[in-house]
């Protein structure tokens, strides 16, 4: 037991996310490039629950896509779990997405005409290919939908669909959960259920990154990163003192 404790503390020493001067520029016609993210630098430790906020167009989505390994930065460094992934190939990024990251989207993004259970199994297909139906059922039970396994997304309520998405996000036991406005399309009741699930995942030691513009959701987070015009303008512990913002203009 003592040995395991030191192991975990060693792991904690490696930051879950460490970005340095991370930038993303888009070419826009003939005119100058649009800089969607400007030299963002911050570090997120293992087990943190971080809320990323900002108005639309502030660079939240760009940051999320970069952190989620769906996109590559134009410049800067991104170390995920100690691994420099900013120059990874498509294949390598795909493996990272499969093993280390679980996505939860505002619009659920379940495969239509595919049962809840099969939706949860999709990430396993792209892992070692070994589809473990039992653990898929287990994940579904965990989000309280054990009796909805054979239902299609269209037969589920919004809240239920999002819970299926949560089950899909955690099926590969990723260390990092990226949630993009997960409650944006839900009523208050369903929203609090989904947030409760996120809280549980956080309780298990997973790192949660929640992107939202809803100030109410910051209540779940222990830290808030605020973006404006592609730059990190504030980074503070919630209920604590402000952190020094690195690299902000």
């Amino acid at each position: 037991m003592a040995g395991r404790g030191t192991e975990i503390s060693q792991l904690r020493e490696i930051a879950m996310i460490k970005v340095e001067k991370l930038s993303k520029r888009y070419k826009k016609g003939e005119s100058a490039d649009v800089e969607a993210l400007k030299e963002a630098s911050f570090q997120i430790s293992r087990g943190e629950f971080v809320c990323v906020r900002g108005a639309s167009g502030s660079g939240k989505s760009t940051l999320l896509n970069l952190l989620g390994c769906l996109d590559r930065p134009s410049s800067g460094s991104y170390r995920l779990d100690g691994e420099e992934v900013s120059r990874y190939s498509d294949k390598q990024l795909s493996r990272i997405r499969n093993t280390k990251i679980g996505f939860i989207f505002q619009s659920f993004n379940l495969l239509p005409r595919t049962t809840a259970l099969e939706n949860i199994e999709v990430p396993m297909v792209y892992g070692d290919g070994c589809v473990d139906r039992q653990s898929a059922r287990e994940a579904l039970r965990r989000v309280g939908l054990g009796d909805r396994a054979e239902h299609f997304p269209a037969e589920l309520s919004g809240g239920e669909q999002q819970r299926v998405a949560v089950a899909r996000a955690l099926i590969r036991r990723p260390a990092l959960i990226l949630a993009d406005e997960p409650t944006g399309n839900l009523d208050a009741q369903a929203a609090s259920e989904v947030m409760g699930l996120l809280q549980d995942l956080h309780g298990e030691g997973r790192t949660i990154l929640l992107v939202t513009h809803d100030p109410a959701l910051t209540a779940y987070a222990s830290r808030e990163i605020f973006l404006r015009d592609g730059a990190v303008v504030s980074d503070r512990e919630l209920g604590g003192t402000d952190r020094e913002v690195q690299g902000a203009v």
Partner: protein
Amino acid sequence: MRAAKITSQALRSMNRNRTRAGLMMLGIVVGISSLAILSSIGEATKRDTIKRFKNMLGTFDTIIVRPGGSRLRGMPTLVNVPPTLRFEDADAIAAELPEVKAVSEVQTAFDIDVQYRDRTASPAIFGVSRNWLELRSEDVADGSFFSEEQNASLTRVAVLGTDVRNSLFPDEDSLGKSIRIASVPFQVIGTLKSRGAGPAGAALDNIVLIPINTSSRRLFNRDYLTMLIAQVKDTDRSTETTDKVAALLRERHHIRPPALDDFTLTNPAATMAQVTRAGSTLTKILSGVSLMALLIGGIVIMALMSIAVSERQKEIGVRRSVGAGRSDIVQQFLLECVLVALAGGIVGLLIGIGGMEIVARVQKLPQTLLWGPIVKAILVAVGTGLLFGIYPAWKASRVDPIQALRS
């Protein structure tokens, strides 16, 4: 395991879009069914032609020499055979050309009645050498063939083809019976095995064989031949041997250019090659037609799958977000195209086999289910799916997951 899972997902995806999958299959179904029908008909026709030739000639290692130049057409009868091809010519070919293994002398008549009691038949009468059976790959069904002694001593014996035996002896044994060929009595010593139909549907079993010397001196009363058959030693060199036979005959008949030959040579191997080539050309043309249908089928797959890619952008985005690489997406869509094409191919084959049965029945061709064309058809279907799946699969792999997930 992974491949199996991707396959089952592709199958499920096809199942979810049944109408589209059905449409995609359509072109392949048409292409493959016509390919199967046409190439099988071509192949069956070819085999049938070869079989008929084989029925008539027995073997393909013989050169047939007929008297008269190439102007002469039609079946020789007693009256219109030019008296230019002599027994001595046959002897000379056998003696002087080492390339020739054996020579058979033949006299024929097609207008002679054969009688047994009150029954009459009009078969072809063949006066032949003792070696006829070997040269023609024929065999005696009952009784025996005549011997060299019987030939030398002008014995009046006859061997009957099955048609003749059936019409003269419908319900009694023919062996030992006495028949009359042009009123000359002959004893039946044997019957031939049936040979089936010739190239033009000629009745090859409507024949009576008698010793050549007997036919020459006792029946036809002529000392020239209707035909001689030279068996070549080396079939690969049958054309050269044919030329040598021609040269020898020209010399013996004192023919010098520009005088034309007074004989006609047929090299069955060459004829066969020509027939086979013509057959395969037909097969090629017919296959080309079906390849056209396959091309259209392939384009249909490409077009519909491209539309499907546009409609399934979100699915692609989701798969990408949970760890699918571009290559996984390429595989998935390629596999779907291949499976659709394969399914189309199988349906097409089933229709094709059904069609073949009908055509075979109508055309009275032998019903041959040929594995070659079947395997070829399946491969062609899979290949079509693969080829025309490349573009939509590539397109799918280029879908930007970020855009796709946001939509």
